[in-house]
């Protein structure tokens, strides 16, 4: 049970999250990213290392564009 999709479940819908394309947006730019997502209600999961790593990097790039 170490695969992330088996670890995380949506508490409300009580089903495991599944990888899916999700639209993220910043400063007027939107693009699809593959994330874990509740197939029922759409709640997503962004892990800490993604939020503090890649996401900050892209945020900075978009800010300077």
């Amino acid at each position, binding site marked *: 049970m170490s695969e992330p999709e088996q670890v995380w479940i949506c*508490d409300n819908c009580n089903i495991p999250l599944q990888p899916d394309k999700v639209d993220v947006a910043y400063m007027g730019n939107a693009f699809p990213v593959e994330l874990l997502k509740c197939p029922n209600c759409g709640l997503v999961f*962004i892990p800490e290392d993604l*939020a503090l790593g890649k996401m900050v990097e892209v945020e900075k790039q978009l800010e300077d*564009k």
Partner: protein
Amino acid sequence: MDQKELFALEQQCIQECAPPCTAACPVHVDVRAMLAETARGDFSAALKIYQKVVPFPHILSRICDQPCQNVCRRGEIEESIAIRALERAAVNHGELPEEKKRPMPKRSGDIAVIGGGISGLTVAYDLARKGYKISIFEAGNELGGGLWKADRDYLPAEVIREDIEVIYELGVEVDLNTLIDHIHLFELRNAFDAVYIAVGPHASENFELERDEYGIIKVDPITFETSMAGVFAGGGLLWGIEMHSSVTSISEGRRVGISIDRYLQKVSVTASRVNEGPYTSCLYTDISGISPRPLIQMGDPDFGYEWHEAIQEAKRCIQCECMECVKACEYLREFGRYPRRYVREIYNNLSIVKGTRYANTFINSCSLCGLCAEICPENLDMGAVNLKARQTMVAQNRMPSSAHDFGLRDMQFSNSDKFLMVRNAPGTAASDYVLFPGCQLSASSPGHVEQVYSDLREQLSDQQVGLMLGCCGAPANWAGRPDLFESILSAWRTHLQAMGNPKVILPCSSCYQVFQKHLPDVEIISLWDFFDTHGLPAEVTSANRTVSIHDPCSTRYESHIQDGIRHILGRLGYQIEELPRSRERTTCCSYGGMMWLANPNLAEKVVQKRIQEGETDYVTYCAMCRDNFAGRGKRTWHILDLIYNQGSDEQATRRGPNYSQRHDNRARLKRQLLTEIWGETMDGSQPYESIRLNIAEDVQAKLEQRLILVEDIQRVIEYAERTRRKLLNRQTGHYLAYYKPTTVTYWVEYLPIEDGFIIFNAYSHRMEVPGSGSS
């Protein structure tokens, strides 16, 4: 910022002015660079720099009259640099690489040079290299003219011949033993496209050119054009005496070359010809800290400097430059250049349409402290430039929200019901005075605010003293938000009017600066001036201790406040050891301009540098300065610590409250004052505020560093528990929820416990994702 402003600002920074030596040199040898290469031992590089502007290096490095030496700044300390001797050393010890056979440009035109002296040779050299066809007519039996009159010990015949050889190599036609006197000038002019007359002091009567009353041929002093089109004159004939400065002759020859080239290319001969000859440098260089270094003597004066001697002598060069502001400001140093370049980069950043804006971080990292303007010999204020740039970025909708968001939200908190409060003294309808402690003193030492307010009411017992809590609006100004700033200012205006326009008593110098600059109609007094004139509120016990004062950068031009502080310290029995930078040269603690938000790494360097400037304990009178210093282990008191608590060790080392506690302290201060003094209660708290959190210390530290407040976490949990929108980790059993109250999405990992929630982790991002419940 438009182009005109940009140019004006660029001009203001004189860092790129040539050093005095180069400006005084008639051909502008880049002496500074040449000596830097020599000091490194790279004589070939030095020679390359020299030869770039000197056509006959062996000759000139022996006989130049070196006007550069008279103005060399080293000469103000002891002896000027031996510049010519080092040029000779470059010639002696350096080697030029085999010149690459590059295709010679082919410009068409036949040019006659009358006279084979050094100025004529320079014209021939410069123009032959451009591809013109040159004919030199020399009356004597050898090229060189006046060079042959120089002392042979200095300038042996073979040196002259070897250096001049290049003229033949360039394919210049040389007619020796050819006296031109008997030919009429117009015939020559017909045979050639341009003529340069450089025949020495005694020009022929046959040259039918306009002359002055002494019979000297008239020329334009910049272009050397005579009264006949296409005919130029220079050298000794203009002075009527034998030329003695060969470098001046070369310089004139070079300028004539430029004129002839432009004349033949049919472009303006006169356009933008500034500083071609010697001029006075506009560079500023502070030489006050430079220690004497004696002139290096030559072991063998006939040969000149040995290479190791030359290196030592070159090391005496100060490498003149300004860089005053860069030396003083850690921020300007951090980005590796200087204002002239920075201004250009800012301009590019603001005018770019597509592409990367490289200067965003630069613009937002300045503390706007104004030290640069104070230090700069031309008073260039990079703080003002950066503030304007921020305003432009905001107006262009190009300001990254990450730059100032946290600071602006902190300000918003202070001006919300949580902290904002305006009251006349209980039972009164107007005030003579009002205490405005500001947001940061209230956050850092709420107890002192209560104390000061009660003491002021006692000291001014026959007058009415009101109280106004809130943030002056400085962060809005720093963030380049004039609209927001103005709305805050106008709120203060309205409140003060309603109180009967009382005099505002200000402990915080940032507030003081805002009121003074932006609310000029409001009467203000610094609390320290007040204590200085009205006496101290508490009983004085003599401390008999030495301290150093950190003047907050916002007091830079408020010497009366600085004096007031020094008087108060004197009265309290403190001796003062002034820091090297104090008063109008004081530095920012890194809070100013929100540098600490835009560039935390730089802010850290700035604080570290400041706390290392003095050994003794510091005293300051801004809560942010104090917390910044003490938070990094520098014993620092707020002046109120000394007035009220005799400067205890505990207060000198006390770390300031964290960001969440700062909010709490403000809110509590308001609640307390309202209950105790006005007998009112505060209502209207949000549901999330009652959520109790259990946060371990290491998590707490992480939150602080990530700029996540307790209230942010409370909001996430309140939202997640209310809507059940949360994830469950089946391994740990922890919940993970996310919520975006305004611009930032916060993620919180938590577990409910009996009377609240344990917090395991929290992080945030600005990118928007679906399901963040944003309002």
